[in-house]
Structures are given as C-alpha cells and as structure tokens.
C-alpha cells in the first residue's frame, strides 16, 4: 500500500478494528450534524461506537436515539431537509421497516447516507448475512455501493457523502457491508488523518434548506399527475449523473489514500475464458477458489461489482467481453422472477456484446449459510462444463443447499 506522506503530519497507525467500528470511525471524521439510528444486529457496532464518540464530545453530532428504524430514517429526512448532513445505519428487517421512507428520501432528493449491514429478511427470523435487504431497495433511487471488507467499509463511508451531495446527484447513498463477515471481522484498517478526511468530505452546502435564514421553501409537497412523472424522470438523470461522479470521487480518494477503488473490481480477467461475478465480502473466497482453479489450469477470473446502483453497464460489458461463460453469484432470491437480481443486471449488461457469454446463475449463502472456497470452486467447474457443452442452464443452481 502506498500512502501520501506529508512533512508535518504523521499518518495514523493502522487500526485493528471490525467493519462496524471502521464505519463509526469514518462517521466520527465526517461529523454529520445528525445521526439517528435504532439498534439491530449486526449493525450495533456502528452505533455503539459512534455513541461513545458522542459521549466523549469527539463529534458535534446530535445523536437521536429513535424508537424504530422508520423513525431513524424519518429523522434523517427532517434533518437533511433542514440543512444538516444526516446518517443512519441498519440491517435487514430494519431496512424493511424503513421502506416507505427509503423512497421518500430519494424522492425528496436528500443526500443522506445509510450504512446497510446486510442481513436476511424474516421470516424465518435470521440475523445473518444475505443480500435480501439490499436487493429489496435496488429500484428505490439510492446509490448503492458494496464493500467487501472493513477497509472498504471505511473508504466507501468517506466517499459516500461527496457523491450523494454533488449538485448533479442529490440522491441518498447506501454503503452496503455484509453483516458479520464485514461488520464483525477484525482486520487491519488504514485510516486517513482526521484533517484529510474532513477536508475531503467538506461540509454539506445545500441550495435550499428549511433552516436557511430568510428561507421559506416547502419541502416534500404533493404532485398530481401534472408533475410526478417529470420529477421521476429527473431522478433518472440524477442517477445517471452519479455514475461518473462516483468514478471521479473514487479517483480523488485514491490520490489521498493510495487505495484505488473502481466501479467494478477485476481479478485475473485479462486471459479468462470463464468468470464469476460477485457482490460484497464473498470476493475473498472467490479469489481463493480462482487461485486453486488456475493452479489446475483453468483460465478463470472474477468480476466484483462495487457500484451496484447505478449499475455500471459499460464497465461490466468491457470487463466481460471475451469471456466465454460467466457464473453470476446471487446472495438473494428474486422469487418468481425470470432471474435473480444480479443475474438480471448481467444479462442486460452483456446482451449486446458481439459474442455474448454463456450465463448461469448461482444462489448461495442465504441466511448466513457458509461460503467456503470449495463451494465457489464447484461453481467454477459448473461454468467450465457449461462452456464445454455450449449450453446455458435454464434455472439457477443452489450452492451449499442441503
């Protein structure tokens, strides 16, 4: 890792913290005006650690201990419309309870940030990781970015407000980190000096805000059939605009941190004949499976989608062009749909490639089911077989299902 060394500033020593603590650390540096949250496993590390920062006077934040997740996001909407930077954090059922306000936040064009510690949706009750929660919000006009480890949870948290608040964007941002695998795993995390983080993030400077001296705007009013459609179309433009803003901000952040992040991350794709596509923390095991398969002479690579919304179609197309067969790893089921969520996106992204790869879908890791290397190796072997047979299976395969 290369870091920019300043003459007068000593870089903070690397920390050994988990993903939840890494997010809280970033939130301390960002010092949002308002944080409102309701405890839910596995998000609790974030809000407990942040509460300590509040108790020790290390932030100026007004921390609101609300009585539900719906209220958490509602308070953020009020705070953000008022002119404050606002953040929350939640998981699975908490996001489900917020759902009405998920759409209100984006429809009101409020650039608040949510750290989503992904967790299965009930029923049956399950506190462990899958992407059912994140997939349920994928059409709600939030920018969604999946990190794969505590370092990225921190890095993405620092970048998030700068994307959301960009005048060409003004949309809420979900920093998605896998429940337990990221939130509870202690790893080395390199952090920016406080002043670097603060100057990178700056302050929220909205054009109109409810607390604006002399201001008198009406926020969140009623649209009849004469304006609603146009306002939704503007959200499409904002979402489209956000893609290049994300790219620019990740590049700017790399200059500061020395850590390069891209909209999609590639591993050994250059000469790959087959590939796996993945979201989130399973990346590590997928890489290990790829290393093993490579040792066996299989030309396989990996594409990890970091920016999930807006979906980076061009980047995905470019990365997968020339690959003969692709396995898509979905950690949530789109019940009754022709394909699961990530598969749907990959189908659409690759459909106009001159030589579209054969595609097959894998469902894995639901409700915290283990994701060992051997399981992904099995997926690679399936994809190799599909390539050899020149045929796409019609239905998804279920990895690790008993």
């Amino acid at each position, binding site marked *: 890792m290369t870091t920019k060394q300043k003459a007068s500033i000593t870089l903070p020593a690397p920390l050994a913290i988990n993903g939840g603590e890494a997010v809280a650390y970033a939130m301390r540096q960002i010092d949002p*005006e308002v944080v409102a949250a309701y405890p839910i496993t596995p998000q609790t590390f974030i809000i407990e650690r942040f509460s300590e920062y509040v108790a020790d006077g290390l932030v100026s934040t007004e921390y609101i201990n*609300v*009585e539900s997740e719906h209220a958490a996001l*509602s308070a953020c909407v009020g705070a*953000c419309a*008022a002119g*404050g930077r606002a953040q929350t954090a939640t998981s699975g059922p908490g996001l489900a309870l917020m759902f009405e306000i998920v759409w209100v936040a984006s429809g009101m064009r409020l650039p608040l940030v949510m750290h989503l510690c992904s967790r299965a949706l009930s029923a049956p009750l399950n506190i462990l990781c899958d992407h059912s929660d994140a997939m349920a919000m994928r059409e709600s006009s939030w920018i969604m970015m999946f990190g794969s480890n505590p370092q990225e949870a921190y890095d993405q948290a620092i970048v998030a407000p700068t994307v959301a608040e960009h005048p060409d964007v003004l949309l809420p941002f979900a920093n998605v980190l896998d429940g337990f695998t990221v939130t509870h795993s202690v790893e080395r995390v390199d952090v920016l000096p406080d002043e670097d983080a603060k100057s990178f993030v700056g302050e929220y400077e909205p054009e109109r805000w409810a*607390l604006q001296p002399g201001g008198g705007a009406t926020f969140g*009013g009623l649209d009849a059939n004469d304006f609603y459609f146009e306002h939704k179309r503007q959200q499409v433009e904002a979402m489209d605009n956000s893609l290049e803003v994300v790219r620019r901000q990740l590049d700017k952040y790399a200059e500061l941190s020395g850590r390069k992040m891209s909209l999609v991350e590639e591993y050994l794709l250059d000469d790959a004949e087959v590939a796996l596509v993945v979201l989130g923390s399973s990346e590590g095991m997928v890489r290990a499976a790829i290393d093993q398969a490579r040792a066996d002479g299989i030309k396989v690579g990996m594409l990890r989608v970091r920016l999930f919304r807006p979906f980076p179609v061009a980047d995905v197309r470019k990365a997968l062009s020339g690959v003969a067969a692709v396995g898509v790893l979905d950690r949530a089921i789109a019940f009754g749909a022709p394909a699961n969520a990530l598969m749907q996106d990959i189908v659409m992204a690759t459909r106009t490639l001159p030589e579209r790869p054969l595609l097959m879908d894998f469902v894995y890791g639901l409700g915290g089911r283990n994701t060992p290397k051997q399981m992904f190796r099995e997926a690679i072997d399936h994809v190799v077989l599909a390539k050899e047979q020149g045929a796409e299976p019609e239905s998804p395969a279920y990895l690790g299902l008993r």
Partner: protein
Amino acid sequence: MTLKLRELTEKTEQFGSGHALCAGCAEPVAVRQVLAALVNPPVVALATGCLEVATTRFPDTTWKVPVIHSAFENAATTISGVEAAYKALVRKGRMEPRPLTFLVFGGDGATYDIGFQWLSGALERGHKFIYVCLNNEGYMNTGIQRSSATLLGAWTTTTPAGDVRPGKLQWHKDMTRIIAAHNIPYVAQAAVHNWKDLMTKVRKAEAADGPAFINVITPCDRGWRFDTDKTMEVSRLMVESGLWPLYEVENGVWRMTGGGQKRRPVIDALKSQKRFSHITTNGDESVVAEIQRRVDAEWESLQQLCEMSARAESES
C-alpha cells in the same frame, strides 16, 4: 406572553390564500390562529392529511414559512430531525443561533393512530417542539373513515349506520390524557371558536421548556354533516356539552380554561351534526344515554384532577 389583539392584527399572514381546503373547514382557522399566536418564526412539519394535500400541491404552496412533509405517521420525527440539525449547525458554528419555533400539524389519524409511536418517541426524547393535533374525529382526507378519535355512535364510511350497527361501536381514545402521561411541560385541549383560549395556549406551549401538545377540535362540515356556516357553532356546542373540555396541564398542573363548559346535554351537540342523526332521531335513546354517561364520568375525573392540582398548588 399576553395576547394583544392590536398586535395580532398587525402580524403578517403566514398562511396564504388559495388553498384547497373545503368551505367551512376549521383547519385553516386553527392554523392561522396558531401561526398568529407564535412569537418566533416557525419551521413546520406536516403529516399527510387534508391540510397537507390542500396546501402544498406543486408548484404552489400556501405556506410563507418553511414546511416539510415526509409521510403520514412521522411528522413528530421529522421535526425531531429539524430540531437536532438546528442544534448541531449552531454548535458547529455553521449558523448563528436565532429564535425559532418547531411546529407540527397532524390530523387525528396521524396523531391518535398511525403516528402514535412516532409522536410518543419524540415526546419522550424531549425535543423542543409544539405538536398541534387538528382533530376532526376521522380520516377525512381519504373520505370520512373512522379513527380512534371518532365518537361512539358516529356514522363514518367505515362505520356506516346500518340495520344492526348504530355507527361506531367504540368509545374514543383519550389522546390528550395519554400525552399528559408523558409528563411533558405543556398539554392542552382547545377549540377554534375560542380563539383567545387557543392562542393563549399556543403562547404557553411556545414558552414551555420542552415538548408541548395542543389537541384542537376542528369540526369537519363534510364528515360531520353540517352546513358550512355552522363550524364555529358546532365547535362551541362540542365544548359546552362537555364532549370537548377545554383544559391544560401545565408542568403537571391540571386546569380548566376558557369558561362556558358543561352547561348543556350532549344531545344538543349531537343534534347539530347529521353524522349522529340515526341515534338522535330513531327513538332509541340508548346510545345517546351511553355517550352522556361516559361524558359525565370523564368530566368528573377531569374535575378531580384539576381540584387535586389546585389543592397541591395552594399547599405548596
């Protein structure tokens, strides 16, 4: 703190003309009284409801003060966020401190029912704001359906008076006393026909050291079935019959206010509203008698609380 009529007439109107509320609606009357009574400029949060949809249709707005609407149930939480942002922006030095009053308007649906949790949470957290419930005893915005504020026996579109059911079957929730049980500094019931009482309560609410709640009865001519010129008369009858006692709970002290209360039988108020015509004209007096019995009991309980407060005050 004292209201001076001359000063009130000189205040700039902050709720404009051209809104789409019905002729005869009591809500804009209440809103104007509240806004005129405030000493500080307000920042308002609205719950979804008649007032919100009739005053914020894009690209127009009736409001000359900042207003935020987010959803039906969460206006108290919206204002929590605003109040929190204000504190933090001042603490950070990003904004000069200035006197502001954080204010919410919500209907009885938003207050008694769907938004009960959000309001209770915001009161417990102690945000400094005034919550004004515009209580028209039903979900009027969606077409006159029953709420937990609807009176026993009332016709609504979801409690129609039929051959076997005489309108609403349940007694209403006593929301004001539930709010008083949160032990916040100021709680009151008010009515639009008694503007001086209502506006004095708004002044007290604004001066309170913490959250304040004012429950305003806002007769709905469409839902209660009376002529559009009878709003103030119906409001007065609700108070004079004891169906809507005017009182306040100021720092735990219960006090009747406004005068002229409980000097008529409930039948006088019920007869002014055709939503009760099936129980006032069918010869069966049992529902009316039950309403009278419950009103008498609640009145007695309220008097006892006021007397206890008076005794405690005189002893201290």
